[in-house]
């Protein structure tokens, strides 16, 4: 029986993967629009009470309780070194799953799900300027309608953290 289920699940997943191709969850932060491939997105939830964790980087806002599962949330604005904004009733948390790590992204406003064709994605211009912090996590630009959307690479977003964390550890031990 287990086998059967697994197969079905696999098929479902595969199908999903297929239908998810080229789809992006887009959201607005400040004046800029960002997109994240929908295959990473688990769900979108309303803003929740967040338990702050002391002594962590400012963009890690704390922990939320997602139906018994405790997951960290980060503020995308702060992550990109923008001025933090007040949370309003439009503020949402996008729960993403990157290689089995669940993380919530606090965003100002959810825009929509966009289909973006591969060929309309161009790599970000490398300006070599430091203030564009978010460039580290943007792997492509896409023009849809009248807006340019910055497509985020969540894996990079996560990996970067880990490296930073390890570096931090090493520095401390020294």
């Amino acid at each position: 029986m287990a086998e059967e289920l697994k197969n079905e699940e696999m098929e479902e997943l595969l199908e999903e993967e297929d239908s998810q191709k080229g789809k992006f969850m887009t959201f607005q932060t400040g004046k800029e629009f960002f997109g994240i491939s929908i295959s990473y997105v688990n769900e979108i939830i309303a803003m929740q009470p967040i338990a702050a964790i002391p002594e962590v980087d400012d963009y890690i806002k704390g922990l939320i309780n997602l139906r018994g599962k405790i997951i960290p949330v980060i503020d995308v604005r702060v992550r990109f070194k923008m001025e933090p904004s007040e949370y309003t009733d439009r503020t949402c948390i996008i729960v993403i799953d990157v290689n089995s790590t669940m993380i919530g992204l606090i965003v100002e406003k959810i825009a929509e799900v966009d289909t973006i064709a591969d060929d309309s994605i161009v790599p970000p211009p490398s300006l070599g300027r430091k203030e564009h912090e978010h460039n580290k996590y943007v792997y492509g630009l896409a023009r849809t309608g009248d807006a340019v959307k910055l497509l985020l690479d969540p894996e990079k977003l996560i990996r970067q953290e880990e490296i930073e964390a390890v570096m931090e550890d090493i520095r401390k031990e020294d």
Partner: protein
Amino acid sequence: MAEEFNTESMLDMFLYESGQLLEKLEGIILEKQDADCFDDSDINEIFRVMHTIKGSSGVLMYENITKVTHKLEDVFYYLRESHPDDVPHMELVEKVLAVSDFVTGELDKLKNGDTPDGDEHQLVEDLDEFLGRLKGEIKKQGIQMPQANKHEEPKQFYITPVAGDDSHFYRISIHYRSDTQMSNIRAYSATYALKEVAEDLLYTPDDILSNEASGDVILAEGFHMLLQTKSSKEEVIALIDSSEAEEINFDELTKGEYGKALAEFGREDAVTIDLGEEDKAEEKDKKKDKPQPGDYVVKTKEAGKGKTLAKNQPKQQSIISVNVEKMDALMDLIGELVIAEAVVLQNPDLKVPGLELSNFQKASGQLSKITTELQEVIMSMRMMPLTNVFQKMKRIVFDVSRKLDKDIELEVIGENTEVDKNIIEHITDPLMHLVRNSVDHGIEENAEDRTTLGKPAKGKITLEAKNEGGKVYISVKDDGKGLNKEKLYQKAIDKGLIENKLISEFTDKEIFRFITLPGFSTKEEVTEYSGRGVGMDVVVKNIQSIGGRLDIESVEFEGSEMTLIIPLTLAIINGIVVQVGNSPFVIETASIKEFVRVGEDSLIHEPSGEEYIVLRGECYPFIRLNERYDLADSISNVEEGIVVVLEHEGSQVCVLIDKLLQEQEIVVKPIPPYVKKVKGLSGCTQLGDGSIALILDIAGLLIQDGERR
């Protein structure tokens, strides 16, 4: 269904018993390794162990095991009958261990479902040669040669069930079109065709010919078959008439899945049993009841049911083995239950003023009592003595000390101390490392080095476990060289592992802790047993991952003591929830000494900004949690807040909090690894209202506090 009958199969029993015997054997050997010879009772015991394993392996036809144990039994037979002097004891010990290792290896293969195919020839030859010398010695000493040890070939054999390697297992489900006529006959012809190739075939409904109504069942629910056969999938499919079939599901199963499926089908291996109330009562009286001939007479099949036994099979079992995963699942569930209980009992809906709650309180009191008991029971189920772990350590001391040619005595204290099973899994490797270190680095290379210091020539390692205050202490103590502080300091400086401070600025403990820094290894050369450069730091990491720590004591030339301090269990603690600012924190109840309210005049302000509190003449370091963790909207006036006095390992610290919320059982969850470790926090938990509280780690707070000063 089958799971209710968690009875031991013949093979399980063999594995279990032999495993036990071998453990006992190793125990004897390691205890007597340093003696001059085995005494009579040891010889008898080893003889008996070999005899038993030889016998049962003979019945199960594991011939290599039989041959090896047979030979060793012979050796001990001559020792028992003739009592020769001058038996090369060390060699004998080695022989016994070699046999024990061989058999253990074969048993492991069986456990993994492999064939025990180890080659016994070399071992048997060695034993033969040894036996030959032993006999020669007996003759030389003029002792009468006993009659040859008689061996009886087993007369009864047990053939362990095995699926032929080329057997396949399938589950086939046929759904006929709803207008199919006489679907039961179609189904029957399918089974008939399969019987040609079947080694085993089972189907449901199973009364397809005798019961015409079964046709409707087949149309509604489909016709399901379990098939064991040597034929390939394609061959089987070709045999099934698919003309009226709407859908045929065809799954290949593993043997295990097939067994489970058989159980679902209600088949021989998983007999349907109706235990009446009466029988249950009876059962208690006759615990030792054995199956009797006649218990397994099969009643004629009833429509739609599996085979039923005419007589109820007595069901009794005093010990059952349970899959650890199931235990863990139960543990998790109970953890969730505890949370759910808190959610109900502390529900804000209950806080309506004037609500009459006395009945609710009574009932909830009862509920709490039961959940507490439930927790205790599951905890006790998971507790295991350290005996096995310590046994392994004995073997390591034995092996390593012989390889390094050091004379070492091992003393074991408190091996019956019980700890949670998952903790045992986590401490075995670290402990092994510590023991190896002690043998390799701790004890002096030459006995003269010891005697000149007035120590006995023989080194001593003490392995001790004890249970104190909700923690388990496991220490590895040696009376060897001890740690040389200057050397450690110099090395740490040379390797750039520490800041450039004078040695006098470090406390002894801090210096000893250098050895746990990554990239530190005191021994110049890397040896086979320890000092691979990844050593103590890994030990410390492993121990920390389960909330424990490593304590190091050492006096140069006198020896060292490494103590692992680990929690009894990982999952649930008793905690007090406190609030600072807007954040709730949990403090483990065991570490709280008292709560006090103090006046501003009890505070001492150092010019450096450090603060101390004077309580009853004693001076304690003082931490304002709100400042330490930068928490807004909190009380900063000491007189308005509450001071908690915390104790950890004899050091105390006072912490200022805003208010106490409640005491409750806390299910510890790790902080998601994405968030880097914060010193002073050991985990988080979900409170009754669903919010998250961080758990304070007193040890971490103290260390951090120490570092700041």
